[in-house]
């Protein structure tokens, strides 16, 4: 599903340049649930942004869903993001004046679906994350856990090939974190490919594989025994 080879990323800081990713190689197969771990500044978010086409690698090779990603212009990137990728962010990034249903329906708008169809699909995915009754609520009327579940519903509504989650539990307490991880595990069981960036060991252990990053290089890449998220 994802193949990256020798990815480098430099940030220009005036005259000097900051070398954030120093040659990353790894592959993700379909149906995997991978945790990318590392302390802050290890380059894990940068890696995720490159994988998510939100940012470009300075050098290296990236193949997503058998499509080589090169010479991207913004329009092409937008179309790939729309059709191949789903995003979940630490700060949810819901549009604050749109209610839960409209937020979930938004990627479908950019896929060119009609309004009726969009709403029908959106309500389906809200039900999947257990928030059907909250469809008409604005983000400000939802709890953190509920917001993140709406964001997940939005990310998967367009049926992406890969779901990318950047610290999805970073702003949540332990209980709601586990609820969100349970949802992610369920989605993975349905066959979705998911990458989770985190710095929390317990969250990482709920995935099936852990990739550890330190100072822009992979220090460890191992399959683990998955811990199932317990929700009381």
């Amino acid at each position, binding site marked *: 599903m994802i193949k990256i080879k020798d990815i480098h990323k430099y940030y220009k800081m005036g005259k000097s340049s900051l070398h954030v990713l120093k040659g990353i190689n790894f592959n993700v197969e379909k149906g995997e649930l991978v945790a990318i771990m590392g302390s802050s500044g290890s380059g894990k978010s940068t890696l995720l*942004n490159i994988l*998510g086409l*939100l*940012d470009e690698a300075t050098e290296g090779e990236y193949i997503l869903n058998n499509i080589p990603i090169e010479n991207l212009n*913004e*329009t092409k990137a*937008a*179309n790939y*993001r*729309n*059709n191949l990728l789903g*995003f979940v*962010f630490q*700060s949810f*990034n*819901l*549009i604050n*004046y*749109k209610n839960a249903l*409209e937020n979930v329906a*938004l*990627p479908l*708008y*950019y*896929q*060119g679906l*009609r*309004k009726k169809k969009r709403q029908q699909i959106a309500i389906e995915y809200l039900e999947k994350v257990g928030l059907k009754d909250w469809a008409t609520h604005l983000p400000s009327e939802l709890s953190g856990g509920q917001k993140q579940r709406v964001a997940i519903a*939005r*990310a998967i509504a*367009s049926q992406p090939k890969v779901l990318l989650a950047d610290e999805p539990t970073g702003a949540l307490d332990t209980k709601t974190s586990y609820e969100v991880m349970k949802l992610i595990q369920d989605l993975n069981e349905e066959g979705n490919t998911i990458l989770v960036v985190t710095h929390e060991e317990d969250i990482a252990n709920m995935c099936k594989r852990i990739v550890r990053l330190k100072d822009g290089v992979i220090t460890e890449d191992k399959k683990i025994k998955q811990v199932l998220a317990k929700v009381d």
Partner: protein
Amino acid sequence: MFDKESWQEIFETIKKNKLRTFLSGFTVALGIFIFIILFGMGNGLKNTFQEFFLDDATNVLFIHPGRTTIPYKGFKANRQIEFKNSDLENIKENFKFYIEYITPRIYVGGIVRYGLESNSYQMRAVAPSHQHAEKTIIMKGRYINENDITHKAKVAVIGRLVKQDLFKKENPIGKFIDIRGNLFKVVGVFQDDGGDNEERSIYLPYTTQQLISKGTDNVNMMIVAFRKELGYVGGIALEKAINDYLKEEKNIAPFDNSAVFINNVSSDLKEAQGFAGVLQLIVTFVGMGTLIAGIIGISNIMVFVVKERTKELGIRKAIGATPRSVIKMILQEAIFITTISGIIGLFIGVFVLNNLGLKLEPYFIKNPYISLTTAIFATCILIIFGSIAGYVPAKRAAKIKPVIALRDE
């Protein structure tokens, strides 16, 4: 480009961001409104101005006597020139093919009484044709006629405000007023567009006045109306001919220009029209200034709106919005809001202007108006520039990378 789905999306955005929509709409509506009001008032000022200068007939020469400055034919300098009745007759005779009418004017001042009321008024002793020269409008009764002149009748035509002062609600026609000790019968009441001063004066037959002032045949000035067919150039030519004739007649040196003054209304009018043109220029300038201020206002609001939406646009891009669709969305919204509020401003402005009507006349603004073409043109300009003002920041926003837009503040 303008499909139903994107309109739906925009209406939802507008509906849910009422304050933002109101603010940008208000700026546009206010811009158009102020433009229309200012432009209309400028036009009103122009109206008043033109009326002032169109008060008198435009084919008229006012001939005033002066003093000589050059000794000539045995006469000393500094001699006061006087016009007599015979001058009137001579001019009439010599220029009869060019002249429509000629009338003398003698200024008289003094106290006028009726019953217990009395006041000091400016009076003019004139011939019947003076009515045309001053565009005097008779409200009641009649003007001075030939009969009055021949019989040196003691009749008076009083201004509207004189009637108000002396007679209050009483009908003045047929009543006698005391002018400097002589009783005159009021035969008419007039009004004049020239203002309060004109309407606070009294007309008398010039022959009567000459009789009262011990039988002199002096007149203070002469007013000559030339035939309209002569036009502006003909008027100038006649002015010169009469000037030469009077110099000859009164033994004035050919190069002495202070002995006779001729005031040609048609050349005054030309100057006045030039001034009106400058006024028009100022009005246009003010209008354009207002429009530019409006455009700057919209640009500011648009920059602010796009800035405020940076994060939203980043989210939209992250979930698959192309740069094109982002620009399209902002532009479509900007055009929609500016068009609707532009039209609202247009209607309110025109409505207010129409209702002002004559209310501002005391402030020299008469009948303020704006032509619909100008108003619609201004609205279109504002809409076009409003869109351009939206396009520039929208394009920049569409270029920002989603990561940067999504960065937490």
